[in-house]
């Protein structure tokens, strides 16, 4: 089974390694931004929250920045969060060396309709959630097993036929990954994921 495709979960875990904080004496004035060794080779995964004017083309600007400069997008979600102020929140999960992550933030900050860029990964704790719809086809034991696992994962059944279920699951990307992995041998047919939405903890 060695050549079996590795599940996204494993890749995710591998990426999640953070380089150790290298806190220099006397550098307390600065935020966590300046504490990591900028030119390290370690690949880090960061969640960025970008507040933008909801104007035509703004998403294209952000995506164009990532493709034009060769940055990674692991996940991206966007929606208007303030209808009166016409502001949207873009949540981007991205991977790169600390230098690349700093560049991404600085480049995002340069886009004219971008108001704020927050790196939730370094700015204290944050909560991350993703919603996923998962269609599973099957009968007999497999169908029962799928339902039981859904219950354990607190997934809801939002559509049902005699041969299939559509589950709705909400949680961290890791939890969604784990649930999808479990559904695969039980008749997984189709998956739709929203991508990560994230907020910092506290005020």
């Amino acid at each position, binding site marked *: 089974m060695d050549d079996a495709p590795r599940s996204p979960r494993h890749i995710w875990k591998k990426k999640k390694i953070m380089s150790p904080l290298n806190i220099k004496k006397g550098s307390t*004035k600065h935020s966590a931004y300046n504490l990591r060794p900028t030119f390290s080779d370690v690949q880090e995964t960061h969640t960025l929250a970008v507040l933008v004017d909801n104007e*035509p*083309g703004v998403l*294209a600007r952000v995506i*164009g920045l990532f493709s034009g400069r060769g940055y990674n997008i692991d996940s991206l979600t966007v929606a208007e969060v303030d209808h009166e102020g016409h502001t949207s929140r873009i949540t981007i999960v991205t991977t790169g060396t600390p230098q690349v992550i700093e560049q991404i933030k*600085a480049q995002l*900050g*340069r*886009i*004219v309709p971008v108001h704020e860029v927050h790196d939730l990964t370094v700015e204290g704790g944050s909560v991350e959630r993703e919603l996923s719809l998962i269609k599973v086809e099957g009968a007999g034991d497999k169908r029962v097993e799928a339902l039981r696992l859904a219950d354990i994962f607190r997934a809801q059944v939002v559509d049902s036929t005699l041969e299939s279920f559509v589950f709705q699951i909400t949680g961290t990307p890791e939890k969604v990954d784990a649930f999808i992995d479990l559904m695969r041998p039980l008749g997984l047919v189709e998956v739709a994921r929203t991508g990560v939405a994230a907020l910092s903890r506290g005020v």
Partner: protein
Amino acid sequence: MTRQMTGAKMVVQALKDQGVDTVFGYPGGAVLPIYDEIFQQNGIRHYLVRHEQGAVHAAEGYARATGKPGVVLVTSGPGATNAVTGLTDALMDSIPIVVLTGQVPTFMIGSDAFQEADTVGITRPCTKHNWLVKDTDKLSGVLHEAFHVATTGRPGPVLVDIPKDVQFATGTYTEKAKTKVSHYQPQVKGDMETITQLVEAIETAERPVFYTGGGVINSGPAASQLLRELVEATGIPITSTLMGLGAYPASGKHWLGMLGMHGLYEANLAMHGCDLMINVGARFDDRITGRLDAFSPKSKKAHIDIDPSSINKVIKTDMPIIGDVGHVLEDILKVWKARGRKVNKEALQKWWSQIEKWRAVDCLKYKPSEKTIRPQYALDRLEQLTKGRDRYITTEVGQHQMWAAQYLGFEDPNRWMTSGGLGTMGYGTPASIGVQVAHPDALVINVAGEASWLMNMQEMGTAVQYRLPVKQFIMNNERLGMVRQWQELLHGERYSHSWSEALPDFVKLAEAFGCKGILCKDPADLDDAIMEMLDYDGPVIFDCLVEKHENCFPMIPSGEPHNKMLLGEASTKDAIGSKGAVMV
């Protein structure tokens, strides 16, 4: 009282409110209403170019020679796509320009209409920001905002796409003063704590060097003045990128000359050997740094830049200062003076005597030939014969550009316009036109190579039409000189397509355009020929036949650090390793 007017009239009104008196453009179906308004007024002078790329480069030349934003008006579709090279050029060199494009009417957008292109989509990555205006009521606000974005922070090109129905429709004009100020307000004052750190470093440094760039020019004449004051007061040597020439005078005694791939020996070795590097408005471009892991290994680096994304982009900075060069230099001077104007005099003296030894190598020396005009000689003579005049130089891109940077001296900012970041062949001719429009009485010379010059030579028509006495000084080696040089150094002297076998007769070409042509091929005639060019009251095409196989030195081969410079022909064998070969 609100003012009602058509979108087309708003364009003209907004330009006037922004203090614009010069527009470079080319009409077409989708901008006819705006051209009709231009026809019916006198405040704004429109210069008809021969190609939209020329319009943008002319606006760039105008902007760089004046410090004001350049304005371009072109039509939809091909008009807009032809402007793309100019926009990218302005983005790379941080030049403030405002490009107005016509667009097919809003109800036809997306229907593949005649001369329709997704202009905002195409120009999104090559503008600082762009707008498609679908509502006449919003047009004037967007135009004012466009000028604000183009000129504040790190300057750059912006584009406003205006559909034809928006130009015809009537709406409310918003005054410049009443336009809602956007949140786009870049930081201009530097962090005082880091500035103090830098001043401390200046006080103790043994081998400091100023490495200055286009940011000093962009910050305005006051920034150049402050830089001069700081350099004179501290006695620290100064070098500059291609973009920053003129911020510190070439005749200044602390001047090391340009640095970088074709920079001067003393400048590059000072960069390599320094213990404190003060980067003022430059961006550690790959033409400057050479091999990154061997770039100035022993130095602490300070970096003053208005764009946070320039900090730590390629080179790790010890003292990052985000802010406008002018403001930051002022603060540095203030703090340095308040702390007692200290420098490490003894060490500086030693540093200077080391620099003098490098200087003694005289890396720009060459032997004039009696038979052919060597390009270095041509520029040497041009320099001598134009010295002391209010002189503006534009260039094309290639060997001649590097020689011009090496052999011409610039005493003041805004006198040198060249395509640095993008390296756009065909930049110089239209840029010279833009400069001459801004300074009708000044001497404007485009130092060109024949290959680059041919790329936008149609603009001579513009020069003749508006009686702009631009001098096109073409150093004609019948080769794509820089390409040929690289083929010689890197590709076994296989000169693949790097020469033209069908060059025009430039003198006849000049006559065809209705201007003066001069041919010079004998070094003995050169001075007289140059004087003839300078004395002629009108545009001149000067065909200067130069040595065909001259290489441009000094040169840092790509993939090598500063201390591995090549000084001349003898040292070029296998100069570029396989690692360097993949770089440009």
